[in-house]
C-alpha cells in the first residue's frame, strides 16, 4: 500500500501522513496543549502539500517540526496578546527520551475519547492520527470544509480537560477505525485505505489480539474489493464474485495476523468477524464454503456481542449450512425491524424455491435499502425472479 506521489516530485503523501501524529507528539512534549498543537501541525501539513512538490525538504520530519512549532508560537503569541493570559510553555524541548510510539497511542485514545460522538471522533482521528487535511475529510464525507472544521474544534473543546497521559479505551478506538473503514467513503483520499494504514500503525504500537483482529478483518475484506463491483459499478454479492480477483497477498497477511491473534486465546468480536471472513477467503468457489464452521463462528459472535445483526447474518449462514427452511426458522427469531431483515428473508425464500414470495420480498427490501447500490441490486433480483415467473 504505497502512497500517492505527486507526479515526478517524490512527495510520498502516505509517509507525510504518518509523520503527523509524531509531530503533534513532539509539540505536546514541548509544552503545547493538544488543541493548539494539532491546529499548528494541520497548518504545516497544508503548507507541506502546497510547497513540497516544487521544493521538497531534505528532512521532512525536521521541516514539519520546525514549521509547526513556528505556527504554534504564532498562535500562542496572538492568543496571549488577545487574552493577556499566562500560559506556561517550554520554549526548548524537555530532556530525556520519550517514546514516539507511546505518544501516538495516546493520540488514538484521545481522538476516540468516549465523551465524543462517533462523527466527531471519526473526523478528529482522521486529522490528528491519519494526517488528512480538513478539506480531504470534508470531500470524502461530502460536507462543507467549514462543517468538518467546526466538528473538530468542538471535539477538541470537549476533550480539553482530558489528560494526555491517561490510559484510554481501546474498544472505542477500534469502533472508530471500523467505522472509517466500513462506511466506504472516498474522495481524493480513499478512507478504507487510510483506515487500514492507521489500524496497522495502531497494531504496531499496541500488542492486543482485538487490534490484530480488526486489522485482519479489514485486510480480508479489502482483499475482495476489486470483485465487489462489476465494471458497470454494480454490487456483486459474495456468491457471484470472481474469486480470481481477490488479492492473495492481503488474504495471506490477514490470515497470518488472525492466526497469531487467535493463538493468544483471548477471543473478541473483531477476531470472530475476521475468522468468518477468513473462511470465505479459504473457499475457492462459493460452493466450497465451510458454512458449518461459519455458523459456529456466528454463534461465538452472538455470544460475545448479543448483536441482532450477528443473529441476522447467522440465519443466512444457517440457510446455507442446513438448508433454507432452517435458515428461515433462524430468521424468525431475529428482530424484523432490522435494516437487512427483508433482504435476508427474500434470499432465503428464493433459496427455498418460493420465487413469487421472494420477488415481493426483494421489492420490499429495495424500498427499505439505505443506499442506492443495494437498492438497485435488490430491484434487479426482484425483476429477474418476476421475469422467470412470467416467462
Amino acid at each position, binding site marked *: 500500500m504505497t502512497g500517492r506521489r505527486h507526479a515526478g516530485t517524490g512527495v510520498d503523501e502516505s509517509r507525510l501522513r504518518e509523520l503527523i501524529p509524531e509531530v503533534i507528539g513532539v509539540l505536546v512534549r514541548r509544552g503545547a496543549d493538544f488543541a493548539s498543537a494539532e491546529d499548528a501541525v494541520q497548518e504545516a501539513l497544508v503548507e507541506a502539500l502546497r510547497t513540497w512538490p516544487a521544493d521538497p525538504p531534505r528532512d521532512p520530519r525536521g521541516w514539519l517540526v520546525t514549521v509547526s512549532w513556528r505556527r504554534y508560537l504564532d498562535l500562542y503569541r496572538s492568543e496571549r496578546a488577545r487574552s493577556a493570559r499566562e500560559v506556561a510553555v517550554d520554549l526548548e524541548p524537555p530532556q530525556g527520551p520519550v517514546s514516539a510510539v507511546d505518544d501516538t497511542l495516546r493520540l488514538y485514545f484521545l481522538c476516540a475519547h468516549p465523551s465524543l460522538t462517533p462523527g466527531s471522533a471519526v473526523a478528529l482521528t482522521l486529522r490528528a492520527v491519519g494526517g488528512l487535511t480538513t478539506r480531504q475529510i470534508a470531500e470524502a464525507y*461530502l460536507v462543507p470544509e467549514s*462543517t468538518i472544521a467546526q466538528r473538530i474544534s*468542538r471535539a477538541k473543546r470537549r476533550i480539553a480537560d482530558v489528560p494526555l497521559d491517561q490510559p484510554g479505551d481501546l474498544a472505542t478506538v477500534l469502533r472508530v477505525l471500523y467505522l472509517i473503514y466500513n462506511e466506504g467513503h472516498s474522495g481524493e483520499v480513499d478512507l478504507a485505505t487510510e483506515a487500514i494504514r492507521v489500524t496497522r500503525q495502531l497494531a504496531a504500537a499496541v500488542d492486543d489480539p482485538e487490534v490484530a483482529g480488526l486489522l485482519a478483518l479489514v485486510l480480508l475484506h479489502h482483499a475482495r474489493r476489486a470483485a465487489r463491483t462489476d465494471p458497470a459499478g454494480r454490487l456483486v454479492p459474495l456468491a457471484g464474485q470472481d474469486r480470481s480477483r481477490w488479492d492473495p497477498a492481503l488474504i495471506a497477511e490477514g490470515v497470518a495476523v488472525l492466526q497469531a491473534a487467535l493463538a493468544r486465546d483471548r477471543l473478541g468480536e473483531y477476531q470472530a468477524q475476521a475468522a468468518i471472513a477468513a473462511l470465505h477467503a479459504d473457499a475457492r468457489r462459493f460452493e466450497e464454503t465451510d458454512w458449518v464452521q461459519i455458523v459456529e463462528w456466528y454463534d461465538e459472535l452472538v455470544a460475545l456481542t448479543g448483536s441482532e445483526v450477528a443473529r441476522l447474518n447467522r440465519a443466512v449462514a444457517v440457510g446455507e449450512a442446513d438448508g433454507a427452511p432452517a435458515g428461515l426458522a433462524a430468521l424468525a427469531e431475529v428482530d424484523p425491524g432490522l435494516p437487512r431483515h427483508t433482504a435476508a428473508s427474500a434470499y432465503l425464500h428464493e433459496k427455498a424455491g418460493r420465487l413469487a414470495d421472494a420477488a415481493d420480498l426483494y421489492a420490499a427490501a429495495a424500498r427499505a435499502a439505505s443506499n442506492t447500490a443495494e437498492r438497485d441490486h435488490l430491484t434487479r433480483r426482484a425483476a429477474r425472479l418476476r421475469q422467470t415467473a412470467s416467462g
Partner: protein
Amino acid sequence: MAKYLLLKHYRGAPAAVNDVPMDRWTPAEIDAHVAYMEDFATRLGESGEYVDGQALAPDGAWVRYDGEGRPPVTDGPFPETKDLIAGWMVVDVDSWDRAVALAGELSAAPGAGGRPIHEWLEVRPFLGVPPTVTE
C-alpha cells in the same frame, strides 16, 4: 453520520398550528422569523452538522422530453393544488433522532404574534454509501 433533508413546503403540508400567511404578519414579526432562521443555520454550522440550505421560488414549470430532435415540452404555471416545495436544509448528523430534533427546532420558528408556527416539515434520509462489511 448520515445526511437528512429537512423539507419545507409552500403548499401540500398539513396545516400549521399558527397558520397565518406571512404577508399578514407585522414587519417586526417577519424580522424575528428571518433572524431565527439565520441563527438556526449558524448554530448548525457551529455544531458541525450543516451541509446545505436553499430557498426556492414558488414559480417554475413542468418539463419533459418530447422525442429526438424536438425541444423539451414545458407546462405551467403550477396548479393551485400542487404540492409546492419552498426550500430545504441538509444536515449531517449522528442519528435519525437528532434529525427529528433539529426539524422540531426549525418548526418552532416564530410567526404571527411572535408565537412558534408549528409548521410541518418533511424529514427524509439520504440514500448513502453501501457498507463494506455485510456478512
